[in-house]
C-alpha cells in the first residue's frame, strides 16, 4: 500500500485533535504543524517498512491474508499495545 495522501494525513491530524479534545488529554507543547510532521513521519515509516512487516508474518498468514487484512491485524496489535501501556 502506498503512503497516504496529504488529505488523508490531515484527516488523521484532525481526528486525533478531536479525540484528544473530547477526552481533554494534553498532548504537550505541540502545534498543528508538529502533529502533522509526526503523522507524516509515521506514515512514511509504515510505507518504508511494509515489506519488512510482510516478511515477519508467518505462513500461512503471509500468503492467505490480503494487504488490507494485514493492516487490520497490525492495527489491532498496535491498539492493544496502547491500551496496556
Amino acid at each position: 500500500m502506498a503512503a497516504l495522501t496529504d488529505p488523508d494525513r490531515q484527516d488523521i491530524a484532525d481526528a486525533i485533535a478531536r479525540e484528544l479534545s473530547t477526552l481533554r488529554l494534553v498532548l504537550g507543547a505541540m502545534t498543528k504543524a508538529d502533529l502533522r510532521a509526526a503523522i507524516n513521519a509515521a506514515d512514511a515509516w509504515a510505507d518504508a517498512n511494509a515489506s519488512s512487516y510482510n516478511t515477519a508474518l508467518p505462513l500461512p498468514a503471509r500468503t492467505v491474508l490480503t494487504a488490507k487484512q494485514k493492516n487490520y491485524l497490525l492495527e489491532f496489535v498496535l491498539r492493544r499495545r496502547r491500551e496496556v501501556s
Partner: protein
Amino acid sequence: MASGDTLVSFVPTDNHPPNANAATPDYRNGHPVLDFDQATVEYANFKSCLPRFYSGGGITATIAWSASTATSGNAKWNVAIERIEDEGTDIDADSFATAQTATGAAPATSGAIQYTAVALTNAQIDGLLVGEWFRMQTSRDASHANDTMTGDAELVGVELRET
C-alpha cells in the same frame, strides 16, 4: 461614559448558534464553554443592544478562552458586527461587516484562560448606532496559517468595551 467602559458581556449560554458550522456547547468543570474546532471554521453569534452611553470610540471585543488540550500554539479569532437597525437589515440573511482579527497564544497550562482582544474601529461596526440591536459573530479562523494550536479552543466569555 468613556473609553474603557464595558458595554456588554456575553457568556456561552447567550449564543444564538448559526445553522451551519456552529461552535459546540460543552462544559469544563461546570463552566459552560463553546468549542471551536482546529480544522473547521466555526461560529457563535451573540445578540444585544448597543448601550446609550456608547460615545463612538470603537469597540474592543475581549475573548476569554482556554485550550481544550494544547499548551502551545496560537488561536486566531475573528469578530464581526451585524447592525440590525430600524426598518433596515433583513434578518432573513446574514449581513455581518468585515471581520476583524487577533491571535492569542494557548496558555502554558491547559485550563488557564487567555484574554485576546479584537479591536474594531467605529467604522468597522457596520454603522451601528446607540440603541440599536446588533449581532456579534465570533469565529476561530482555524484554516488560517497563523492558527497553529492543536485541538479545540474553548470560548468562556466575551466582553465588549468602548476602545
